């Protein structure tokens, strides 16, 4: 990587509150990986989630304002955001503004127009494409060997595919490969892009309990110790509401739900508090402490001749 990685950074509102640990670990990891994040000055709400259900033009203007601000930054190659909701809104606006007529309507609402010159990407996409698992692997000073993870991308990170233009929209693998690069194991997790119930958290808690419960059930039945996510809403539903889910579904999950940036941070040698692990509702500390022993056991098992075992 000869050239400097420099991006416009759109933090999004969750990172200021409910997902502070995502924000914190994202910044720490990016810095460690040599990715310079330049905050978009005076950034404002992207419009997520309700704006576009009211008015497409105004919704695009909300995102458009941030796009236009980012375009004025010097030497940045893309606009990055950790949050899939923000990503969707920014990308949809940019996409719709490829239509000159629509762009003119939106630009009329803005102080200065969107030129649509910078690509919008998730932090995940930037780490995966601009750094990559191969470059990440040698940087890991503490491998998370023995940690079995269900990689959960959420429903909007990769969809609709013609707008998001990243990874396979049915079976994404970017996070799987990054987790494997830091020694963890990504278990088969068929519900990678299923809905967690997201914004029904307040209005229809029963739906969240059903959908998120299913995610936890499937993760557990596929042998995962923990879930790793890239979305503040997914993380909140699975982590914060895990007790509610257990009560409603008569289950007893005790499954930590990480942000992938937290795990990369740990692998890069950061302390638990540097990546905000204490903010997680389901504490991962016991699991993480058990890792060295698991790694040892795994190494022992590998020495023995391959044992028979049905693997579906």
């Amino acid at each position, binding site marked *: 990587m000869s050239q400097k990685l420099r991006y416009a950074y759109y933090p999004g509102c969750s990172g200021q509150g409910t997902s502070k640990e995502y924000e914190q670990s994202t910044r720490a990891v990016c810095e460690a990986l040599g990715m310079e994040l330049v905050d978009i000055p005076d950034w404002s709400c992207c419009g997520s989630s309700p704006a576009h259900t009211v008015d497409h033009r105004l919704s695009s203007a909300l995102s458009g304002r941030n796009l236009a601000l980012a375009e004025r930054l010097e030497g940045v190659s893309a606009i990055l955001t950790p949050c899939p909701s923000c990503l969707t809104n920014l990308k949809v606006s940019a996409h719709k503004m490829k239509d000159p007529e629509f762009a003119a309507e939106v630009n009329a609402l803005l102080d200065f127009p969107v030129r649509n010159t910078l690509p919008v990407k998730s932090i995940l996409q930037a780490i995966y494409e601009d750094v990559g698992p191969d470059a990440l692997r040698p940087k890991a000073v503490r491998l998370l060997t023995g940690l079995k993870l269900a990689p959960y991308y959420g429903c909007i990170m990769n969809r609709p595919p013609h707008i998001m233009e990243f990874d396979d929209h049915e079976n994404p693998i970017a996070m799987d490969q990054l987790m494997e690069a830091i020694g963890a194991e990504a278990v088969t997790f068929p519900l990678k892009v299923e809905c967690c119930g997201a914004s029904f958290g307040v209005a229809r808690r029963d739906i969240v309990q059903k959908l998120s419960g299913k995610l936890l059930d499937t993760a557990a039945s596929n042998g995962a110790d923990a879930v790793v996510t890239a979305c503040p809403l997914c993380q909140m539903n699975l982590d914060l509401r895990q007790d509610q889910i257990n009560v409603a579904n008569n289950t007893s999950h005790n499954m930590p739900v990480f942000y992938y940036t937290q795990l990369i941070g740990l692998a890069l040698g950061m302390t638990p508090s540097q990546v905000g692990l204490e903010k997680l509702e389901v504490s991962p500390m016991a699991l993480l402490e058990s890792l060295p022993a698991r790694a040892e056991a795994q190494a022992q098992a590998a020495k023995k001749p391959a044992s028979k075992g*049905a693997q579906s």
Partner: protein
Amino acid sequence: MKIGVFVCHCGSNIAGTVDVVQVAEAAKSMPEVAFAKDTMYACSEPGQQGIIDAIKEMGLDGAVVASCTPRMHGSTFMRTVARAGLNPYMFEMANIREHVSWIGKDKVANTRKAIDLVRMAVAKLAQNKPLYSQSFSINKRVMIIGGGVAGIQAALDCADGGLQVVLVEKTTTIGGKMAKLDKTFPTVDCSSCILGPRMVDVAQHPNITLHASAEVDEVFGYVGNYQVEVRKKATYVNWKTCTGCGACMEKCPSKKSKDPFNELIGTTTAINIPFPQAIPKRASIDRDSCIKFKTGKCGICAKVCPTKAIDYDQQDEMITEEVGAIIAATGFDLMDWHVYGQYGAGRYPDVITSLQYERMLSASGPTGGHIKRPSDKKEPKTIVFIQCVGSRDKSVGRPYCTGFCCMYTAKQAILTKDHIPDSESYVFYMDIRAPGKMYDEFTRRAMEEYGAKYIRGRVSMVYPQDGKMIVRGVDTLAGAQVEVEADLVVLAVGAEGAAGSAQLAEKLRISYDSYGFFMEGHPKLKPVETNTAGVYLAGCAQGPKDIPSSVAQGSAAAAKVLSLFSKDQLQSDPQVSKVDLKRCVGCMKCAITCPFGAIKETEVRGEIKAQVIETICQGCGICTSTCRQGAIQLQNFTDNQILAEVNALLSSETEEA
């Protein structure tokens, strides 16, 4: 020149919106026109007789008929003119129906337009010259490409009709997709029991030469006289001495070779005969898995072969077959269903294709006719069939209906119940398409007698959980989401033109669509012809169809060839290019652009000149527009003829301001 103009009323079809009398009147003052008249129905018997009488009485030497499209009655009137003693090419048509009267109601504008079109036709006719066909003899042999059921039928019909037949098959045995099927709908009779005897007939027919493990490399020539270069691919077994005893298969140590005949659900030996009824029953070696080829050591088959037929040094062999007609019956392949990420894109072993399932059902298949799911070889109890995987789905670029999947899915549901009486089958479908004799009754039986549960709706996702495949879909009739815990999922994958059909189409100079299906000459009236004379289609190569339709098309194509060969000589179309030797500078650019190889280099008094092979020339005129000297002119569409039309039109004024 004395030209006659005949303006047709076509009842009120033309006369309703064109003043045909005025058109005829205007024609009288056009250059070279000696006679002009309107006529009620030019194409009717009295109409044609009127033209003939006028030509004879007035001593006309050319006729313009202003009526419908020349694509409709051009040849009719050419025959009329010929009956009057003129050369049929001393005739032009002005299309004042499809291009005038039917597309506008303004009679003044229409009449003006009709007059212009007549003026152009007259001007062109004044440049026409008599053209004469040539007779050429034909080679009454036919090549059939593809040895599936359609090709077999065509081969047998042609051979029974007394023709010499060359059957070229890509794989090492004929039989095609039908040979892979267990049973056939709607009779549920054994596929190989009805196909097998036909395959044997092919092998034994004195008029049929079979080239298996062979592909068409290049095609030269034209109707009646094709030269087809066939590549006989090396099998590393001398088929003249191989007896098909199978000793080599018994001893071959490489037993984990891919088995394409069994759709990769089983394995076979590196040297193998694909199935017991194969025709020709000859062994061949799969180079990629043969230990001898991979490591240089082994050679067991050579040791055990009683007739010493193994030949590791065998090379591809090129042979040239001369034939007068070609039937393309290359069939279909399943589309690549891995684009369906929601069905696992191939990640889940227990999601299989219908053709794989068919091999599982077959008693001669890799599981001996027992249904076993690939992951753990257990017998599945709940089987979900998903229809329209790659059919009627624009999102994967497959808007068309494959047509036979509804029927075979019903058949597979029935057979499943026969094999595993305590099993449950679910069929997710969009619509049941079962037109045909006993077809709808058959799907009803699957539901009513065999208890297959039909759910109308698409499947959104298939994923594994606790040893089951969870199939999530929608029941649009109940308006509910459904989830089925299945042991095995069978996808009814849609058909596309067989691999390599586009390349073959280009060699045959026929059109094909973006799915690899060959284009017929006319969707209704020429279903087995192509736009290339002497090339015919049969079976799924033309579009997906079931066995009865494939067989019918095989017979239809054979009938076309038999009728083509019923004459000893064919007449060439005289609308071919002609070289003016003194203008030609021998640059041969015409030959570069000719799509048919119809132009060759010749030497006239030490200078290179172009020469048109008239029987190969198809009359496109690309050469004419390539030649800067105007030295090569497409007859009946010469520069002067087209310029005459342009000049006639430009010299007439548009409407008065």
